[in-house]
């Protein structure tokens, strides 16, 4: 795994890309892995210490998968939503029990009239009761949320 620890300037740009959810700070080290993917790391280890381990050992993972760049935004992972849930106050789509069932089966969700009236577009944090259950995307016609829940987090 190639890793690149982001400096303050780059981190600021990433925060802008998740501001659509109301997130204003990421109090962890941000690490880029590959072109589009980002991870957050809370360990008590400085940049040089991490790089020392990185150059000495085959690293297969560091911290938590945060999200993937998608156009102007970053699509947050379900676990990153959980970590930053106290900051998320925008673009939240609350779903009902039936929609939650569909979501965990990996299916796209058809929105109700009431949900469509919210006129949300683009990436949204999908919430069921108290739980954030993943990031979805509402396309142009505003009728459906596309489901990005990874396979291993679905009911089979």
């Amino acid at each position, binding site marked *: 795994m190639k890793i690149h620890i982001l400096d303050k300037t780059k981190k600021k740009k990433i925060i802008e890309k998740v501001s659509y959810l109301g997130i204003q700070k990421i109090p962890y080290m941000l690490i880029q892995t590959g072109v589009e993917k980002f991870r957050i790391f*809370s*360990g*008590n280890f400085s940049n040089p210490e991490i790089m020392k*381990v990185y*150059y000495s*050992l085959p690293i297969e993972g*560091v911290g*938590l998968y945060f999200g993937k760049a998608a156009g102007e935004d970053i699509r947050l992972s379900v*676990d990153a939503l*959980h970590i930053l849930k106290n900051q998320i106050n925008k673009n939240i789509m609350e779903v009902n029990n039936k929609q939650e069932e569909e979501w965990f089966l990996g299916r796209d969700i058809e929105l109700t009239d009431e949900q469509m009236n919210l006129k949300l577009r683009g990436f949204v944090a999908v919430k069921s009761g108290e739980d954030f259950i993943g990031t979805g995307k509402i396309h142009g016609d505003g009728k459906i949320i596309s489901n990005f829940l990874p396979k291993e987090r679905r009911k089979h």
Partner: protein
Amino acid sequence: MMKYKDKIKYKPKPEFIERIEKLIGQEAEKFFEISYTETPDSIRCNTLKISPEELKMRLEDYGWKIKQPFSEYPEAMIIESRLSPGELGKTKEHLLGYYYVQEISSMLPILALKPRPDDLFLDLCASPGSKTTQAAAMMNNFGLIIANDTDLGRIAILNSNLEKCGVMNTIVTRKDGIRLCETLLKKTNMKFDKIIVDAPCSGEGTLRKSPKTFLMWNINFIKKLSRIQKKLASSALELLKTGGEMIYSTCTLSPEEDEEVVDYLVRNFNIEIEEIKLPLKLRCGVCEWGGQEYSPEVRKAVRLYPHDNNTDGFFLAKIRKLGEK
């Protein structure tokens, strides 16, 4: 005495029966009887995501009867209701990582080690991640964990479980455990406050979920494993800070893989074995086996037999490093 032999598809080999009888005498009957039953469903609440109180309430809403066997560790929960196959892994709470399906005995090494938020922690044989995720929760995602395993497939499972549990303080490495220790020592000079070596073993303690172990059981394999375990544990001890603590554990009951390894460490390193207090019926380590007498220190290690607490079988020793060799 041999009636359990005819009960099931996988029968214990005579030499295995003989060894268990030598270890626990007439209780061997109970040992083999329970080996053909399933362990109770048990889970560990992931406090990085939810409190035990809230999780318990949610699970009780499914109609599940939950028992918390340890008052000082409410995270451990036994599901006393009879669940349908796969039900435990299909709840929203499981998919979101609010709990980890984990056998009670497997929680004990981390309970004995008590990692703290400022610790530098090494999990040398980490996959599938039950102990790494438990340690991360006790460390509240602070400090640093290096979680290592050798095989890419096992690393994928480890990474998946770390993600699901919301673990952020971990670096995952893929290397043979002995080589990893050598490399860390040579190239980084890192020393750890706490280390867990949950060593690959013959799995005699896991017969309840893997009855095929009866078929695969082989004394030569045990002897080979014992040599590997000594090397692994010795390499790990080199990385432990003076005053630091290490757990050596296995899910097997063969003394060659358990007390013999600890005895080897006692004789070759400046260490002491610490007493382990856990709220379960524990038995002390054996001090003599196969004509060999082990150091009296080895008695402080603990054994769990499946019929004592209705768990899997397990062995653990808590080691404190007193200084360099």
